[in-house]
């Protein structure tokens, strides 16, 4: 019998009875052929690959990282709870040492879900990786150093938003250039908030990037950064839509490339994100990832139409990527030399305003955010958010967020702000999110 080199826990949950809508890419059929391939390959019989059942995430897990409007059970389905809960199981398996690595091969995905959730965007409602990260910090220690490497073809704008000012999480997103693809963000200059400047690394890749390009980024940028940062846990948000057959993107990655990426990155936890070439890509990519995680030979994993469809990456793309990697390496190496006042202004607070569009649910959100610039902690935050739904519903909320390791000044300022905001008649809901103390308060005025 075959034995894997690394013990791998697989949490496979294809949600065969759940879809956004019957014809939506995020539908029952999405992981059907992946299941067929994994079962037929007999991968679950390999000694050292063990399948585990997901658990169900509770409101308390979700409220640590999200502010759902009006509340968690008001926006999410059981399917989302299972996907988030399955991701938490993956973390538990690794952190308790039951397995060396875990693969949460489940849906629906989550990396476009931001901290404030009015509805679904980019097929995502709650952020599976973020819920898992808070679960890890609460269960296994708040100072665990975490790195998330998101290899979905779309910019992980939700994950970026949630950890934007969090010095405990390094977030690297590789994606097709935002000028050419949803959600239109993820440029190199988006580098994190005042408390964690440089901890957000965006790698916008030109359309047409193939195995050579992505693996070049991995070897010359991602791995050196990880070596420098020395995370305790590496999470790969493994979207599979960089594949040459994906209907929504313009990339040129192959199943073999994904497997090699997995082998090089050696992530502790892999979480499926997007990827909608359900027949031509997913069965092969997932088999490849699972083999690579287990330390088995993946060289024979090959899409049936690969030789006919994949063309070598063009020189122009190669040059573009080399230049990008040079720039980003310099930015990483010099991130601590930059005077934050020059980036965020000299004042006691940093403020920004954004419009966020929820493509899946048709919601337009206008967000104002204020981050306290604190010497002793990463600073409390106020988010005021107004959302206009396409059905005409309007909601306006405020969320006060107390970060991990908040200083006493920030903590009391945040609590005072919460009390004030509760009196504000124009706000439908006011929330206080105190992740460190696992406290989530909400008041409807």
């Amino acid at each position, binding site marked *: 019998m075959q034995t894997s080199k690394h013990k791998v826990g697989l949490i496979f949950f294809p949600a065969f009875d759940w879809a956004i809508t019957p014809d939506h890419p995020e539908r*029952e059929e999405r992981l059907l*052929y992946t299941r067929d391939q994994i079962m*037929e390959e*007999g991968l679950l019989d390999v000694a050292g690959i063990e399948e585990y059942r997901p658990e169900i995430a509770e409101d308390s897990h979700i409220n640590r990282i999200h502010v759902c409007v009006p509340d968690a059970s008001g926006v999410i389905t059981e399917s989302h709870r299972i996907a988030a809960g399955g991701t938490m199981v993956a973390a538990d398996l690794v952190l308790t040492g039951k397995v060396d690595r875990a693969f949460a091969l489940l849906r629906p995905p989550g990396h476009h879900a931001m901290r404030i959730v009015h509805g679904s965007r980019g097929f995502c409602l709650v952020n599976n990786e973020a819920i898992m990260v808070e679960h890890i910090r609460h269960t296994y220690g708040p100072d665990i150093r975490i790195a998330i490497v998101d290899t979905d073809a779309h910019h992980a704008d939700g994950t970026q938003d949630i950890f934007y000012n969090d010095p405990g999480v390094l977030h690297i997103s590789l994606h097709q250039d935002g000028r050419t693809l949803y959600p239109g963000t993820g440029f190199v200059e988006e580098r994190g908030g005042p408390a964690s400047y440089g901890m957000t690394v965006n790698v916008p890749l030109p359309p047409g990037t193939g195995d050579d390009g992505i693996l070049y980024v991995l070897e010359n940028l991602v791995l050196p950064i990880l070596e420098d940062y020395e995370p305790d846990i590496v999470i790969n948000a493994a979207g599979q839509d960089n594949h040459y057959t994906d209907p929504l993107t313009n990339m040129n990655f192959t199943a073999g490339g994904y497997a090699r990426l997995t082998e090089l990155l050696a992530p502790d936890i892999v979480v499926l994100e997007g990827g909608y070439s359900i027949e031509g890509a997913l069965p092969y990519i997932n088999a490849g990832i699972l083999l690579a995680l287990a330390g088995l030979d993946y*060289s*024979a994993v090959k899409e049936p139409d690969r030789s006919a469809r994949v063309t070598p990456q063009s020189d122009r793309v190669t040059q573009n990527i080399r230049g990008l990697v040079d720039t980003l390496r310099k930015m990483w190496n010099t991130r601590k030399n930059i005077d934050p006042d020059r980036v965020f202004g000299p004042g006691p607070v940093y403020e920004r305003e954004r419009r966020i569009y929820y493509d899946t649910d048709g919601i337009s959100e206008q967000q104002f955010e204020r981050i306290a610039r604190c010497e002793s902690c990463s600073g409390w935050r106020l988010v005021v958010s107004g959302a206009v739904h396409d059905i005409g519903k309007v909601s306006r909320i405020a969320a006060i967020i107390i970060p991990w390791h908040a200083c006493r000044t920030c903590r009391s300022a945040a609590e005072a702000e919460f009390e004030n905001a509760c009196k504000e008649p124009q706000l439908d809901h006011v929330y206080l999110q105190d992740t460190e103390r696992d406290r989530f308060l909400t008041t409807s005025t």
Partner: protein
Amino acid sequence: MVIVGIDVGGTNTDAALISEGRILATAKVPTCHDQLLESTTLAFEKLLNAYDRPDLSDPIELHLSTTLSTNAIIEGQGDPTAVLAAPGPGMNVAELNPGFPIYVLSGSMDHRGREVAPINQEEVLDAVSQAEAGGATALAVVGKFSHRNPGHELEIEKLILKRASKTGRITLGHRLSGRPNFPRRMATSYLNASIARHQAVFVDMIRKFMVRDRSVGRVFLLKADGGTMQLEDSLIRPVETILSGPAASIMGAEALSAYPDSNTVILDIGGTTTDISVQIKGDTVFQRQGAEIAGYKTLVPALFSRSIGLGGDSEIKVVRRLESNKETDASLSGNNTLDLDIELEIGPRRAGTPAAFGGDCITPTDAAVALGLAKVGSASQATRALADFAEIYGIGAKELATKIIDTFIKQLVVAIEETYEYLESRPVYTVSEILTPPDIRPQALIGLGAPAGVFIPPIAESLGLKYQVLPCYESANAIGAAASRPTAQITLHADTALGVMTVPEADYVGKIERPVLFGINQARREAMAWATKFGKKLGLDEADNIQIVEEESFNMVRGFHTVGRTFMIRAQVRPGVRRICSSPD
């Protein structure tokens, strides 16, 4: 109808004669090693002698469970067999380390059964010559995804029969199972091919026996799933007869159960091990993918059973002796009696012959005998041995015996709980199954085996269950063999986008005439019809008793348009046992 069930086990051959749900006679003879027919004949004759009303006008139906295939596999006595495999892209078969030679062929299918690459005839013939030059006398042909399209396997079989092999019969993977799992399909096919000749010899012997003894009409063989198959069909699928002995015992318990439609747990407590099996609404739970034998993982449908190294003859160890704090003891209780503060562990090894039977080991059996719970062997010998052991720890024989019985019960209760936790943690793939898992927890406990009378009542009490200790446990296996019914299963896969329907077990690949109109109801009808047809081909009288056991249907959407539907329906001849009244008349 009179049915004789015979289970040829490693040590004993048991036989039972049943008619109209009653046990009319049972018999036991020692198994003559390597003489299956002798053992069968002896048991059969002894049984008929024990049956004092020999007015057998109708022919007897014989249900036979033997260790033939199981032993051939475990002892490595199968014929030298080569597997010709078309793995296509995916896992590297060279890393599989399967325990048999694989000759890799090109040619591959994808997950929907579409041909990706054709087979190469010259390569096939070369592989056959190489395999034969390497000493192989039996062949199996297996393709990845052949359960979705058996085309390549059939083509290769035809080619070999026409052009190459001296071997008459070739095992094809898709005929053995419609389930996915290429490595298991290879192992199943390999084992099947390797024991086919032994099975043919055996079938021949049984035919001769039938000619000699005219009282026997039809002969059925027991399978790992607790069902039966016709003697003739075992020539094509001999691998299904593996592990029929344990299945026979479970079927015996099912047949004799006082709780036929309940959730039950069956404990078969033997000398060395206890086997735990689980019934949900009367049906025994199956292994998730198939039987495992001699390190081979197969697709052979098999009853789930968990074996614990805990039995009447198990070894008893002291794992911890707590130092009793005498001061505290004195102050709390005011006297000097010692608490019995040793901890025991029973099993997993067998100790040897219990002291009660003249051996030099103390065992759970000795504890039961010493306490008067079991009336076997010598109570004084058991008590003496226990007393000697107990003395070291400053306690009495009775206290030690009680501690042994309690530990035995505690360990079994833990094992039962673990079994249910395992079954409940088996992965499921729908939201509804996560949210509303079926209730599989037992309502009743059924015990068989010699020590069952001692242990079942307290275990049932500890679990809060009703219980039944089967009276005729000695011949439960033979009763189970006699009570078994035929089983057969087919898998229908229909893909309306491709317009193709496949039933691998029946060698069928055909066109769907009007794909647009093909819905779940038609898929079900087709599956029922194929199961009936397949059942009849296997000679099953009960081919009208068909049920659908699994079904899947998915909309296939390409580019925001529905292009078809895909269906997987698994239908079977409803399994089950003839109910047997447990009180002998």
